[in-house]
């Protein structure tokens, strides 16, 4: 177990292994994404209440659900960085923060586009999901800006790891406190966030496919950028030099 664990920590090993996996992951991503999108756009029957806007929802829900994975991911990576000093964990964490900010932003944007239909407004402070997602975005941007502010890459790795751990705990606290706070405002709110909307089973299958597709996309994108990070940081290693010479 430990042998495997530390082997995975070796950038070279990861680079080679991920190189083997990538084609399969990409293929799976393309298949799921195509099915999801085509089904979503062409075949999904209109919801009797929400009409064709339920097409928005399959994208929104998939992205929103996936974006909740980032802080836990960074928590784990941060712990590995601090405890086992594994460089690979930091390379993943660095790109996860950036990708996570993208995901949060797209969640907010698609949510707003949906809200502008359902609620007639693009933004609503009385919805706790919106507010806590906004603050998740802020926390991620905080991690990114700390990384860019710190000059020494080794110190930046550890500092960001620590901040991610503290931030992850905070995301949870923020989520619950915002939810609580919000239930107190529900009464006077013009908006009711009815999560149990009457969508058919077809909707949920399409959503499920999209969720798988988006998770695959997350994995592929993260692997691609981590591989870049490996090339940059290991540029003095002989295997990278050989690799560069081989590349056209």
């Amino acid at each position, binding site marked *: 177990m430990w042998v495997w664990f530390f082997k995975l920590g070796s950038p070279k090993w990861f680079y080679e292994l991920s190189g083997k996996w990538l084609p399969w992951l990409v293929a799976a991503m393309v298949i799921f994404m195509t099915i999801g999108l085509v089904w979503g756009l062409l075949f999904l029957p209109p919801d009797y209440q929400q009409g064709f806007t339920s097409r928005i929802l399959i994208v929104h829900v998939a992205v929103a659900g996936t974006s909740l994975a980032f802080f836990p991911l960074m928590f784990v990576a941060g712990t590995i960085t601090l405890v086992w000093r594994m460089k690979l964990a930091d390379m993943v964490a660095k790109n996860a923060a950036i990708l996570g900010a993208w995901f949060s932003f797209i969640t907010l*944007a698609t949510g707003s586009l949906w809200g502008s239909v359902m609620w007639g407004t693009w933004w609503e402070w009385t919805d706790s999901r919106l507010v806590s997602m906004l603050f998740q975005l802020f926390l991620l941007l905080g991690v990114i800006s700390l990384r860019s502010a710190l000059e020494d890459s080794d110190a930046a790795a550890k500092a960001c790891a620590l901040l991610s751990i503290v931030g992850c705990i905070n995301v949870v606290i923020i989520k619950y406190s915002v939810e609580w706070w919000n239930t107190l405002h529900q009464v006077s709110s013009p908006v009711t966030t009815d999560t149990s909307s009457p969508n058919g089973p077809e909707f949920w299958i399409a959503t499920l496919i999209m969720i798988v597709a988006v998770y695959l996309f997350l994995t592929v994108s993260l692997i691609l950028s981590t591989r*870049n990070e490996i090339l940059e940081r290991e540029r003095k290693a002989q295997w990278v030099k050989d690799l560069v010479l081989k590349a056209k």
Partner: protein
Amino acid sequence: MLDAIQFSSFAEFVDMGGYGFNVWAVYGLFAVFVAINLILPLRKKQKIIRQLKRRMTLDAEIQSEDDSHGD
């Protein structure tokens, strides 16, 4: 299978039952988002390799220069 398509004309498809802007904006955003986060890393890889190559030739030059000075 084709009868399961929800639209009878392209115009209807574009209109999405009156919510065309929102639906297409979401799908467009999503497409851009996915594309950017796949294409940027790929392009960056090219750039890194190009840079590393240049670096290696430059290092070799400095090396040989230093060697000739040493003599």
